[in-house]
């Protein structure tokens, strides 16, 4: 393998390269072994590409040595490893992408897996290899990225690749940066330290939604109600926030007003609204640390700097954790959306999807009828208030207690019955015709013919297989004939001979040598055309390109 040599040459040159080769030996070996002879050329043609990877491997190794000295990389390692492991678990356990709707699709899958066993796919074996190496070495995340990179760069015959190449060739993207691990790493670091504000916003939202900040929640509800009745507030409120939420504090920071405030150690009395919304359980009086106003004059500049560094690194770690959580959430959310897109919206379970479609239809129709009679502002605000009241931690258990489990089960049962008996999937199936040629070979005498093969090729004199004196791709018995993928043979239709030899021969532009009965005869072989009906209920449901 050419690029294996390449790598070896590198190894003689430097210590770094030596490390590199050791590390990726497994991967290279698997590429060497797993590539079937046909695909070998394809890989060779991508030589440039592989060389490109090799150079980025260099970058990565440098990066690795640099970052090894830093202490906090350990956390990145662990965190990311954990994350990656989670992700692989998710992928392997996911049986969602199996289609339970149609038997035929199981067959395809099992058939294709058989084929894979016969002719191991480069990509799958590589992925396995890559996983093994991950488990063995538990390496840095840059290495992981490169592993992934190699996997993704390998040629693939999926049709989606075309779209992908379109995306790469898009004029707007061509001018942007090329894929570089260094830049990616830099960006992750930069983002991690700067995302604080976003995470804070996320926290605020969560606190508002879970009533951990009751007054805030109430205010938000009131604001929402006002917006419902007066959408102009959508413009006014941000301006107000800009003025008094951002600019005034900024001004105050620079020009403190120095008003004498005497802060008491304890606060007495309770707010009615707070008591109600927290259920009167405010005994956990948070004894706030007395607020310590910073005095900029008598502070040691070194202390300040130290405190700042500690705060910064703390913030970095916290942000990193939040970023990781955010990514996990994002992945699971995207997963769910994908399941919806390809499952429910993709008619994977036809009955369920039909029910969903019909419900949407009914809702749309009802909305169209009742829209003019409804005050949508009032409706939206009422809905918001009731939802927020229901999800209040003190109200929620009571409300869910009212919903009897049996009733819920009954509802589910009714829905299932609807799906079972009220949705009829009895559309006429798709039908098409398939053909195969039964080829017979001449024996010793002119009348003696022996069965040769069933083939999709006519195997006439101009056939490339015949010219190279090889048997055409085919099967020896009729039982080995399989319908095209995703289709099944119609059990009510048998293989029938096409008796109009002249017609099918002319359609294919064949030399009309001799016709004997249903056979078209030449000096060595004769063949007849057999046709049969194939049926299928539906196309297999769409699945994403990487599944």
């Amino acid at each position: 393998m050419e690029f294996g040599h390449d790598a070896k040459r590198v190894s003689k040159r430097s210590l770094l390269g030596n490390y590199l080769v050791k590390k990726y030996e497994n991967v290279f070996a698997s590429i060497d072994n797993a590539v079937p002879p046909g695909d070998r050329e394809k890989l060779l043609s991508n030589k440039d590409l592989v060389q490109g990877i090799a150079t980025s491997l260099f970058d990565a190794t440098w990066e690795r040595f640099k970052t090894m000295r830093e202490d906090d990389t350990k956390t990145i390692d662990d965190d990311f490893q954990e994350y990656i492991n989670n992700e692989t678990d998710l992928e392997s356990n996911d049986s969602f992408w199996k289609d339970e709707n149609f038997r035929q699709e199981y067959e395809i899958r099992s058939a294709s897996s058989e084929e894979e066993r016969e002719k191991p796919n480069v990509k799958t074996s590589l992925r396995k290899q890559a996983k093994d190496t991950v488990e063995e070495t538990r390496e840095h995340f840059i290495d992981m990225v490169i592993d992934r990179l190699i996997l993704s760069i390998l040629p693939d015959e999926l049709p989606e690749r075309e779209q992908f190449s379109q995306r790469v060739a898009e004029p707007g993207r061509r001018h942007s940066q090329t894929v570089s691990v260094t830049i990616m790493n830099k960006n992750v670091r930069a983002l991690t330290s700067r995302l604080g504000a976003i995470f804070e916003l996320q926290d605020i939202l969560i606190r508002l939604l879970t009533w951990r900040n009751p007054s805030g929640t109430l205010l938000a509800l009131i604001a929402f109600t006002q917006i419902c009745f007066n959408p102009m507030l959508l413009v006014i409120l941000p301006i107000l926030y800009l003025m008094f939420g951002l600019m005034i504090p900024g001004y105050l920071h620079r020009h403190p007003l120095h008003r004498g405030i005497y802060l008491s150690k304890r606060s007495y009395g309770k707010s009615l609204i707070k008591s109600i919304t927290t259920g009167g359980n405010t005994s956990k009086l948070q004894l706030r640390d007395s607020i310590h106003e910073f005095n900029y004059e008598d502070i040691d500049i070194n202390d300040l700097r130290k405190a700042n560094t500690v705060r910064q690194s703390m913030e970095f770690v916290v942000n990193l954790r939040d970023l990781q959580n955010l990514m996990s959430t994002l992945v699971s959310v995207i997963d769910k959306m994908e399941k919806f897109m390809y499952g429910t919206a993709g008619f994977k379970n036809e009955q369920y999807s039909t029910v969903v479609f019909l419900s949407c239809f009914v809702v749309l129709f009802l909305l169209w009828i009742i829209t003019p009679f409804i005050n949508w502002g009032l409706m939206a605000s009422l809905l918001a208030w009731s939802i927020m009241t229901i999800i209040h931690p003190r109200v929620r258990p009571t409300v869910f207690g009212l919903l009897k489990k049996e009733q819920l089960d009954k509802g589910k049962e009714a829905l299932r019955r609807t799906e079972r008996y009220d949705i009829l999937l009895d559309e006429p199936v798709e039908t098409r015709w398939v053909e195969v040629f039964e080829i017979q070979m001449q024996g010793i005498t002119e009348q003696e013919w022996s069965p040769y093969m069933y083939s999709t090729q006519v195997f006439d004199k101009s056939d490339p297989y015949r010219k190279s004196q090889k048997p055409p791709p085919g099967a020896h018995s009729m039982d080995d004939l399989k319908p095209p993928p995703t289709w099944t043979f119609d059990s009510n239709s048998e293989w029938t001979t096409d008796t109009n030899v002249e017609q099918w021969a002319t359609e294919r532009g064949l030399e009309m040598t001799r016709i004997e009965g249903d056979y078209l005869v030449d000096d060595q072989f004769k063949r007849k055309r057999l046709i049969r009906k194939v049926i299928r209920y539906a196309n297999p449901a769409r699945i994403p390109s990487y599944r």
Partner: protein
Amino acid sequence: MSNKKLHVRFVSKSKSVNPPYKPQDLEPITIACLYRLYPWLLLLDQLLDKLMWHIDDVSLQLIYIILLCYSTALVVPKNTSLLFQAFDIWLGYTSVFILAGTMFYYNYTLWKELEQSEAPTIDEITHTLDSVLEKLKTVQNEVLGTDKVRKLTNINSQTFKIVALLTVIHLITVSFLDVRTYSVLVISLVSVFHSVYYQSTMKLLWRYLWIRRCYYYIWDSVPSESKLETNFQQYKVICESQVIPFPKSLQGLKGQELQVQLQMLILQDPTKIDPESDYVHVKIIEYNVDENERKWKQEGWTPKLLPYERAHFSNSFTQTPSVTPWKFHEELPSDWIWIESTWVPGSWQYCDAKWNLLGANDSIACFTRRRTWKRRAFKILT
């Protein structure tokens, strides 16, 4: 190598078995006509494409439809304040102008490009003609139904039903909606009717049992006359009047198996025959009861059938509901005598969703099946 599997190939769809014409056989005058017709064919093709939403640019199509809806303002302006009405009419005029402009511009560019480019080959022309014909056929099928289930083939009670129904729907909608909304709705409906969106929606709605029930309730509520006629015949007459020779004793009986059987049966109850006569006349009939089943996703084949279709047991000739063969056994009028001792079932016949016979084997194309229970009976004619 010995057990190699082979995936067979589809018969290519593109070649029709017997093309209605061959381009090289056409008369020169026909070719000349076709050549003249070519621009118009292209225009028609485009128009049909727009009607059937065979388009790359969905947004453009939507713009056209919206403009079309706005142009209704010229005919029925909104009944509001004068200023708003003026604006509405202005919008209508603008829409009409834009639409007309688009059309003229398209025609102009089409002609120009045709002039500039090479003359079309006869293949190109026939290809366009084929495409137009195919699209017209699709449009026709979508309006009237496919050849198998064609609606409105001739004027009959169903035509009147449709007219009556449409009148009622029209009256209801007009009383609820103003003329403007109504016309906009009609325009939108017509413009989306041949799109895949509308057609697929209809197919999906058809999956819902209650919609089918409504449809059959309205459509088939009055049984047609032909049904009433066939209602009369409950059984298959095998023989109107069969002579059974009847010697006084069972010995030396000759004749067909059936005759022997009959003689034995008659002898069991000798009260019914004239002791003087040497033969009797009998009428032989055969009762056929169909057992019908439907395939359900979870349960497989069960007798549960749809409310609007035939019953679990039905008379094979009239398809009217029937009692089970075993109950039928007891309901036979007293002057009739069963020939066979039990009902004899046939093998299952598998059908598609509309009970059209497919074959003797179950497959994913089969959704219903039926088998016929047969039993013969006879009556002594006096």
